[in-house]
Structures are given as C-alpha cells and as structure tokens.
C-alpha cells in the first residue's frame, strides 16, 4: 500500500534531480536488447492485430480458406439481432457493474482509511480476491448462487424468501447475478487503488473543515472525495473497459444462458469464431466493433485526463 504512494513520490524527486542519460552504441547493440521481445510482439501482437483488420473483410474460416467480401460482415452485423442483443446485454452489464464497482470501492476505501485497530488485518483480507483466478471464483459463485447454494440457503433459512431465488435460471435475473461476481472480485483491486489515492490526500483541508465544525460525513463528501476525483474517474473507466470484455463469468457460470440471456459480446465472439462456430471473418468484424467501443472509452479517459491536468 505505502509502496504505491512512496514509489510515485520517489519517482518525482528522482526525475527532478537528474535526467537519465541515454547512451549511443554500435548499431546492433539496441537490436540485441529490443530484438527478442520485438520478434514475439510482431508474431503475437502486431501480425494478429493487422490480420484482424484484414479478416474482418473476408469470409475466412478458422479452418482455412476465404476471400474478400468487402463490408458484407459489417452489414450482416448491423442486421444481426443476436449481436445487437449481445451489445445491449454488455452495456446493461456495464450500467450495473460500473457504478457498483466505483461506489463500492470508494466506500470501502473510505471505510478502511483509518488508524483504527484491526484495520491492518481487514485490509489484506479485503484485497485478497484480486489475486484469485476469476475462472475459479466463477465456479465457486456458481455453487453460491445455485437454487440450493449458500445464498439461497441463507435467504430461505432466515425466511427472507419462501422459494429459492432462481439467480442463474431466470433469464431476467441471470445477467444481474453475474455482475455480483464481477463486483465481488473487482472491488478488491479498485479499493486498493482508491485507498492509495486517499492516503495521498493532505490532512490540512480536512483539519480546516474540522475547525469549521463540519461533521465527518460532510468532510468526507465535500472535502476529501473531491480531491481524489481523478482516481474515481479512472476506476470507472477501468471498470467500463473490463465489463466490455466480460467473458469468464458468463462462460463459466451460465454458458451464456439460460437461452441466450447472458450472451455478452465476447461470448458471442467466442461462439462465432472459436467454438462451435469457425467463422473467423465474422468474428473479426465483431472484434473490431468491440475494439471501437474500447477506443471510445479510452478516448473519453484521455480527454478527462487532459482536462484534469490543465
């Protein structure tokens, strides 16, 4: 935790004192350093990226063959109601999970931003989900949210509901239930980042508020949180990109079902291009649409960052 904060502090002071010198060497020296990674990146990053742009305009199959079809994939996507629904579901997922993640992690960070005894034990426990593999978490939550899972056992045991809630079997409820998993896991990392920002806030303004007689809640909302606004926006953006890419939760827990109720963009991409489908061209067109959504969010984040710094 403190490592994050002090680290950036060190970096600032180091940069101020001495500008690092880059040396010139014989022509092949830089190649020896950059070359190995560059070969890997060309093969597994730049070529696939370029290839995605080419494939999107073909009817290629993952098994082989294919020829250029112009914009056919995109016109088909436009009228593909399954794709439109997948986009709609993903945006709904985003609309639920992003506010939940942002507000949840901010509240948690404020909660544990204290010197109270026990906090030293609470923090590491609270952050622990961030290191657990999502696919395994998803298996665990599949059991948790089953009709006889822990959540329903507690709800029926406490007589909150008389019948088990069909968290995963009800088409209207399944997608929302999956967001629980995303939020449970995602809050850990986002709370960590928010807490690091909170610990960088200078206490002087808070003390001034205290002298003015403002209560704790008032000071937190009007004095402290506005100072970490940049971090909060950043977390919302990170969460938005992460939910656009959501795959593991629906794939593992519901397999995209019941019916197609939890088929998100990447699940649809997977079904079209990997298994059971082999339509590499169409899947690449879906990939490009997904990429354009991510670029829009990145553009917004760049715009926000620029406005914040000026």
């Amino acid at each position: 935790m403190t490592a994050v904060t002090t680290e950036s502090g060190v970096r600032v002071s180091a940069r101020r004192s001495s500008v690092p010198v880059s040396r010139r060497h014989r022509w092949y020296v830089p190649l020896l350093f950059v070359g190995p990674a560059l070969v890997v990146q060309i093969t597994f990053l730049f070529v696939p990226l370029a290839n995605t742009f080419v494939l999107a305009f073909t009817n290629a199959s993952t098994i082989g063959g294919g020829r250029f079809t112009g914009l056919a994939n995109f016109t088909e996507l436009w009228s593909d109601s399954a794709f439109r629904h997948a986009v709609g579901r993903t945006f709904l997922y985003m609309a639920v999970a992003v506010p939940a993640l942002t507000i949840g992690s901010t509240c948690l960070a404020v909660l544990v931003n204290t010197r109270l005894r026990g906090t030293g034990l609470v923090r590491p426990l609270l952050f622990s989900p961030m290191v657990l593999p999502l696919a395994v978490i998803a298996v665990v939550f599949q059991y948790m949210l089953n009709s006889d899972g822990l959540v329903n056992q507690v709800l029926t045991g406490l007589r909150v509901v008389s019948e088990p809630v069909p968290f995963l079997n009800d088409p209207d409820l399944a997608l929302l239930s999956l967001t629980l998993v995303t939020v449970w896991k995602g809050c850990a990392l986002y709370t960590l980042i928010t807490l690091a920002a909170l610990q960088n806030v200078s206490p002087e303004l808070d003390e001034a508020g205290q002298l003015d007689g403002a209560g704790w809640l008032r000071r937190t909302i009007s004095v402290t949180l506005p100072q970490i606004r940049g971090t909060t926006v950043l977390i919302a953006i990170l969460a938005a990109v992460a939910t656009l890419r959501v795959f593991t939760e629906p794939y593992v827990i519901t397999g995209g079902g019941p019916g197609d109720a939890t088929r998100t963009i990447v699940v649809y991409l997977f079904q079209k291009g990997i298994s059971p489908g082999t339509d590499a061209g169409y899947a690449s067109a879906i990939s490009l649409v997904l990429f354009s959504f991510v670029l829009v969010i990145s553009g917004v984040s760049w715009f926000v960052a620029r406005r914040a710094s000026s």
Partner: protein
Amino acid sequence: MTTRVTTREKLVRWPLMLLAVATVLAPLLWQVSTALKSAGESTVGFPGGLLPQHPTSQNFVTAFTEIPLLRYVGNSLAIAAMGMGTNLILATLTGYALARIAFRGRTLYTTILLATAVLPFEVILVSTLLVTRGLQLNDTLIGVVLPQAVSIVAIFVMRQAFLRVPNELAEAADIDGAGPWQVFRHVMLPSVRGSLAVIAVLGFLDSWDHFIWPLVVLSDPSKYPVNVGVQYLSGTFSADQRVISAAAIVVMIPPLLVYLLMQKQVFKGLAEGALKG
C-alpha cells in the same frame, strides 16, 4: 471530545468492516466447509448444515487421485514458470533499451507500445489462434505462453526502474571501460532488483489467472492449466461439489501464498498494471 468521536467511529466502522470482510470470506469459507464434508453429508442446510459433521480430507485425496488435478497444477506451474522467465528476460531487456539506449525509432516504438496497451486481448483472439496454429504451436504449453511472453506493463515497469538509476553509476562503469553488456549486467541490473521482483510476481499471478487463451488454444484436456481444468470438471455431469470445492481451494492456495509473502510487490504490480492497462 476526541475520545467521544473515536468511540463513535469505532461503533460505526467496526461493524461495517466486519460486514465487508464477511462478504469477502463467506464464499471462500463455505468452499472450505464443503470440501471437508464427507460423502454422505448434504451440501445443503442452513444454519445446521453449514459446518461439516464428519470432517474428512477424503475430497482432497479424491481431487488429486481421481481427477487430474495434480496434472493441472503441474501444467499451470510450467506455464507460470515459463511466463515469468520470458517476462523477466524480455521485458527487462526492452525496458532497459527504452530507458537507457539511444536508437532510431525509440520514441515511435514507445508510443506504439503505449497505444497497444489499450488493446484488449479478446480483439485479436481469433487471429492469434490462427497465427499459433500456423506455427503448429496450438495444443502446446509453449503456445499458451508465447502470446503472453512479454507484457507491456512489465516493459514499462522496467523502463521506469532503469530511468531511476543514477547516471553516476553508469558513468563510473564507462570510465572503467565496461562494455554495454557489462554495464547492463553488473551495474544496472543489480539496481533494479525490486522491480524485477514486481514483474516476476505480476507474471506469476497473470499466468495463473489466464483463462480465455489456454481455453482456446488447448484442445487436449490433459494439457489444461488449473483454472481451465477446474471449470471443465465442474461442467461434467458426474462432478461432486465437495471434490470440486477441494480442487478450487487447492487452485487458490498458490496465488494466496504469493500474496501473503510478497504483499508489497503484489500491490505495486497490480496497481501499476491496472493503471497502465
């Protein structure tokens, strides 16, 4: 005055913190409880059935003997070791060049790397599969590792680390007549050990968590890493929830151990990874 505020603060914060911790721990503890239940016991029942009546380690034994969990763990460890190794070597070399070696196109290369950091892997999933298949590396552990062999986050963590090394160190070595490799190996590398630990930890956690790529590139279930394997088994109709729970716990232990032992590196690595990615 101050003590009264603190008491009130305690009364508000402690119950809320307890609730938060309970929310995090409940699914995990329930898994432990389920994994310890003997075959005849119901996995259902609240509050009576929450704890195992006849605790047994049989499910863990079954997980290792009757389902290929040991194999999965071996695959995952192999993938993680290779991924850590390639990242340590490739990201360090590249990070060093970006920070300390003047070459034509450096700014352009840095910009391209920064730009591709926003590229989600899912976008190039299908094409990467085609490339990997073209190289006949599909269905191999090498094929699982290579697309993640050099992480852009790791490159930039190392670049920042090398930028922080004081110039005097390198200059002193230059005067002593050391070549570029000697300077890198004996002067620069020892000064960035902290960051090497960060990218090693990050590489391990990343590869332990990777799901969609191994799922796509591997077709032989005996090559699955743990998380693909556990979800594959949980989907088979014969799956016993107690055994799957035991397997899930086994899979969670290595990253939790790394987290407990190297908290500082984990925090730094994951936070930087999130901010860059």
